[in-house]
């Protein structure tokens, strides 16, 4: 049960980050390779808030979202003006800058040693030990020590993020995003500034990356910068590309398939140090196959004839 719950929490964390990235990739038509870095900024913000400022879990999540979203907003003000290839290159450079910053600011992030002892969120006591109910001795809230208990936090956050992205896609704002993606010139001619919706989507993607990072830091109780390198960004883009044809449902299915595939790889590859490299090869191959097989690139334009 706990193993299944662990995988489910991993799926929830990845889903939040992936649905956020899908706003930029699928709705804006821009390939972003800095989502791993924004995810890392969120994770470290939450870790610092929880371990140094000793704030609660929800304020830490809010701080992580604001930090990653704010950073995305600041960077996005000029990133969204760039053309597709330039955007990709700039996002790659942003990822490299963020990683170098996270890895080298040892006083803040711990550098290669990372930050340990990150507390897990508290859940209602009745969920952890139903026989005690909410009226036992002491507080009615207790730290979520197991993955099953952590689900009580991860699942609602994941559902909220999915709901938010679905609403954005269906809203007039989402239709403006799609219009700008499909024909920027026509959208401009109709009085729409193409930069504003793109910037908003990029910032929202950063906020969701921050939420996912906070959840990741709290779930694993230890983080270091090596988890947020370019490999993580490629990994996230691969999942978005894999799930793109089927919209949000496709993204969630792709996350689930990828998490399962990771488990299979762990079993199939005897040396644990090789798992990360085999994962890179597997997802690189996925990207190549997606690029060759699909004719519309990562952002399918269903609205076109």
């Amino acid at each position, binding site marked *: 049960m706990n193993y299944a719950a662990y995988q489910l929490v991993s799926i929830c964390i990845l889903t939040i980050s992936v649905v956020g990235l899908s706003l930029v990739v699928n709705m804006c*038509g821009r*390939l972003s*390779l800095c989502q791993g870095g924004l995810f890392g900024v969120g994770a470290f913000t939450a870790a610092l808030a929880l371990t140094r400022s000793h704030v609660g879990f929800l304020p830490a999540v809010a701080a992580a979202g604001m930090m990653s979203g704010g950073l995305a907003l600041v960077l996005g003000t*000029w990133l969204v003006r*760039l*053309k*597709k*290839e*330039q955007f*990709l*290159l*700039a996002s*790659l*450079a*942003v990822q*490299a*800058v963020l990683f*170098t*910053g996270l*890895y*080298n600011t040892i006083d803040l992030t711990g550098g290669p040693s990372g930050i340990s002892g990150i507390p897990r969120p508290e859940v209602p006591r009745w969920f952890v030990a139903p026989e005690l109910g909410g009226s036992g001795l002491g507080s009615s809230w207790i730290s979520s020590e197991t993955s099953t208990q952590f689900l009580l936090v991860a699942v609602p956050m994941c559902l909220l993020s999915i709901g938010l992205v679905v609403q954005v896609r269906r809203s007039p704002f989402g239709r403006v995003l799609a219009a700008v993606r499909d024909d920027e010139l026509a959208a401009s001619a109709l009085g729409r500034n193409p930069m504003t919706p793109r910037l908003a989507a990029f910032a929202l993607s950063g906020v969701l990356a921050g939420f996912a990072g906070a959840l990741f830091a709290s779930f694993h109780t230890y983080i270091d910068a090596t988890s947020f390198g*370019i*490999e993580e960004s*490629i990994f996230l*883009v*691969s999942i978005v*590309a894999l799930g793109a044809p089927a919209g949000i449902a496709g993204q969630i299915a792709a996350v689930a398939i990828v998490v399962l595939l990771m488990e299979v790889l762990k079993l199939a590859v005897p040396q644990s*140090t*090789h798992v*990360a*490299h*085999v*994962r*890179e*090869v*597997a*997802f*690189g*191959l*996925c*990207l*190549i196959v*997606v*690029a*060759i*097989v*699909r*004719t*519309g*690139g*990562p*952002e399918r334009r269903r609205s076109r004839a």
Partner: protein
Amino acid sequence: MVSRGIGVKRMEQYLVNGLCWGATYAIVALGFSIAANAGRTLHLAHGAVFAATGIISCQLHNAYSWPMPVTLVGSVVAGAVLSTLVDLWVYSPIRRRVSTQTAPETLLVGAIGADAVLRGLMGASWGSESRSLGWGGGVLLEVGSAAMSLPQVCQVAAFLLTAAAAAVALRTSAGRSLRALADDPQLLSVLGYNVRLLRTTAMAASGALAGGAGFLAASDWGVDPHSGLEAVLIAAVITTACGARWVVGPMVGAILLGQLHAWMGAMLPSKWAPLLVYSILLVLLMLRPGGLFVVSSRPDSP
């Protein structure tokens, strides 16, 4: 007086170090710009080819005791083969299937995939640690008060040879075809040229250059599977700053960046030095995003 003397000596050494570093990355940037012009995409896997050939050089020399000149040839051939395979197995199938309008972004997805595959294969085969050829470490030449080792002399010689060879090659019939390929592949196809063959040849040449640069980097400062990302970003900085017009832009840009890298490396702690390259790229893209992206403003580009 003594401290002034030490200062001048250090300055000369920084100049030499910057020249050698820039010379190697000039070759990487030239290969990157050839692939970008001929293939009309950011060949992001170019960095992985560079890193792979550096590691292959170390394997050939350190594990199989190949003589150094043969190792260099092996590295160049490996680079050409890897780049050709990327073109044949990734870029060509994508070009065959997708429309001209969606080709650039789909090629980018393929390039990211090829880069990840090569990097993962390197890590799985040879591990993540840095490797070097470990030869010619002593002082071979003194320029003023600066010392140059044998690998550094080779870097400068390779830079001069590559610049001369590229300048001559672009004036030949094949070179003119490659330039025409960058300008208008459709017209070239109408005129009866085999565009696919030309593209594959350009990719092989680009890979051969990455192979040569990989050997030089392994000779001097060493390479690891992740060196490729830094290399391709440096190449992007150079071509973005100085344009991708085949020879002059990448070669001059690399030497200038080499000087900046050496001087900033001397003034900043080494762990922060990589930030310089990425920051320059970001500022360039912000202020002057032209250069390389002249490619995307052509009539048949989106």
